[in-house]
C-alpha cells in the first residue's frame, strides 16, 4: 500500500479546513471500498487521506417532506430503511443490487456519488428521483441536481475543497411507479451491462404526467434520457408508447465497449431494458393506486 498520512477530523468544520489546506494532496475516504482499491492499484497516490467516519451527524436518514440522507449513510442502511422503502423504493431497489453484502456494509451514498464510477447502481436511481446533492466547503453550501452532478469518467462538479454532506430526495409525485433493472447476463456479481432507473407518474385517465429515465453503465456518466422522458409525457402508459419512447434512448447514451459487451449490444440492451422498466413501473403505479 502506498504511504499516506491519515487524518480523522471530528467535525465537518475540521474536515473542511483540512481539505482546504491539503487541497490536491488529499483524498476523502468514507467507507473506503472505492478509494482503498484505487490506492492499492496505485491509480491514486494521495499524501493525505481524510477519513469522514467520525462525522456521525452525516449518517442519518430523516424524513422531512422528502428524505434527507446523510452522505455517510451506508448502502445497507438505505436498503433496509423503512423511510426509503416507503418514499423512494427505487433507491432501496438500486441499493439492493449494489455489489456484495460486504460492500453494502461499508460503502456510503455520499461516497458513491463522489466516486462517480459510471458503472455504479445508485446514481441513475438518484437522477430518476430528482435528488439533489448537497456539497459543503468553507465557502458555503450548494445544492446540485443529480443529473448535473456527474461530468465525466470518475469526475463530478465538486471542487477540491468540497465534501458531499447530504443527498436530498424530494417528495415523489403521488401515485408514481418506479423500477430499477440491472442487466447481468454473465455472473450476478458483475458490473451491469446496462442499468435503468425509471419513474412514471400517471394522471387519473392513465396518461403519463411525468417521466424520469436514467441509465447507468451507458456512458462515462450516468445518463438522464430527456428525449425518452419527453416522448412519454402526455402519452398513454401503454406498451406501444413505451416501445417508441425507449427506441430514443439509442441517441441518448454512449456506451463503452468492454467485457460486458460491444457498444452496439449495450445500446440494444438499453432500449430493451428501458422498455421493460417502464412496464414494471406501470405495474408498480397500478399497485399503489
Amino acid at each position, binding site marked *: 500500500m502506498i504511504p499516506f*498520512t491519515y487524518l480523522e477530523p471530528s467535525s465537518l468544520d475540521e474536515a473542511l479546513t483540512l481539505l482546504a489546506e491539503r487541497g490536491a494532496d488529499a483524498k476523502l475516504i468514507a467507507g473506503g471500498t472505492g478509494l482503498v482499491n484505487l490506492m492499492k492499484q496505485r491509480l491514486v497516490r494521495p499524501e493525505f487521506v481524510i477519513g469522514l467516519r467520525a462525522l456521525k451527524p452525516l449518517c442519518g436518514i430523516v424524513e422531512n417532506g422528502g428524505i434527507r440522507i446523510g452522505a455517510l449513510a451506508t448502502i445497507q442502511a438505505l436498503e433496509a430503511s423503512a423511510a426509503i422503502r416507503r418514499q423512494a423504493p427505487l433507491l432501496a431497489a438500486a441499493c439492493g443490487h449494489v455489489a456484495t*453484502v460486504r460492500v453494502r456494509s461499508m460503502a456510503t451514498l455520499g461516497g458513491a456519488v463522489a466516486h462517480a464510477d459510471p458503472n455504479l447502481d445508485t446514481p441513475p436511481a438518484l437522477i430518476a428521483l430528482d435528488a439533489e446533492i448537497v456539497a459543503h466547503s468553507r465557502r458555503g453550501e450548494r445544492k446540485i441536481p443529480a443529473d448535473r452532478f456527474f461530468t465525466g469518467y470518475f469526475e463530478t462538479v465538486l471542487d477540491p475543497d468540497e465534501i458531499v454532506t447530504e443527498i436530498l430526495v424530494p417528495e415523489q409525485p403521488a401515485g408514481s411507479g418506479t423500477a430499477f433493472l440491472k442487466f447481468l447476463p454473465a455472473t450476478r456479481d458483475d458490473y451491469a451491462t446496462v442499468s435503468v432507473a425509471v419513474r412514471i407518474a400517471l394522471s387519473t385517465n392513465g396518461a403519463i404526467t411525468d417521466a424520469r429515465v436514467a441509465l447507468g453503465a451507458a456512458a462515462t456518466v450516468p445518463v438522464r434520457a430527456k428525449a425518452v422522458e419527453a416522448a412519454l409525457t402526455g402519452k398513454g402508459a401503454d406498451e406501444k408508447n413505451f416501445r417508441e419512447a425507449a427506441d430514443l434512448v439509442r441517441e441518448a447514451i454512449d456506451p463503452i465497449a468492454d467485457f460486458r459487451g460491444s457498444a452496439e449490444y449495450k445500446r440494444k440492451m438499453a432500449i430493451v431494458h428501458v422498455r421493460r422498466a417502464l412496464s414494471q413501473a406501470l405495474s408498480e403505479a397500478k399497485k399503489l393506486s
Partner: protein
Amino acid sequence: MRTVKLTINGKPVIREIEDNRLLVEFLREDQKLTGTKESCGVGVCGACTVLLDGKPISSCLTLAVHADGGAITTIEGIAEGDRLHPLQEAFLAHGGLQCGICTPGQILAAKALLEANPHPTKAEIQHWMMGNLCRCTGYYKIVESIAVAAGAN
C-alpha cells in the same frame, strides 16, 4: 502512525499502527490471526471477510484505522472454547468445505446473515452469500450447511 483501540474476538487490543496498514495485514501479520485469508485483493472473492460490529466487510479493502473503536470478529473467535458454532458444525457435517481456504469467509458471512435473518429462505441465503466465492464445492453444500445451521437455531 496512530494508536487504535478495538476488540478482536472480544479481547481488547491497543496497538500503534501505520496509517496505511490494511486490516487484513493487521490481523494476519500483527495479530497472527491467519484464519482470515487474502486472495483477489479487490474485494470480490470474500476470502478476507471479517465482521466489524457484526457486519461483514472486506478486510483487504479496509484500513486498519477504520477498525478503531470497533469490534472485530474473525473465524478464530466464533467457537466457544471447544464448542463449535452451529455453522461450523453444519459445514463439517454437510460438506460445506473442501480445501478450506474460503471457509472462514463463508462462515463469517453466514454468521452475519443468520443474525440479521435467523430463518432465511434459500434465495435469501444465495443473495447474501453471493459475494463469497468458492471454487471447490460448487456452492450446493454451502447453502445446505447454512440452511441446516439456521434450522438448528
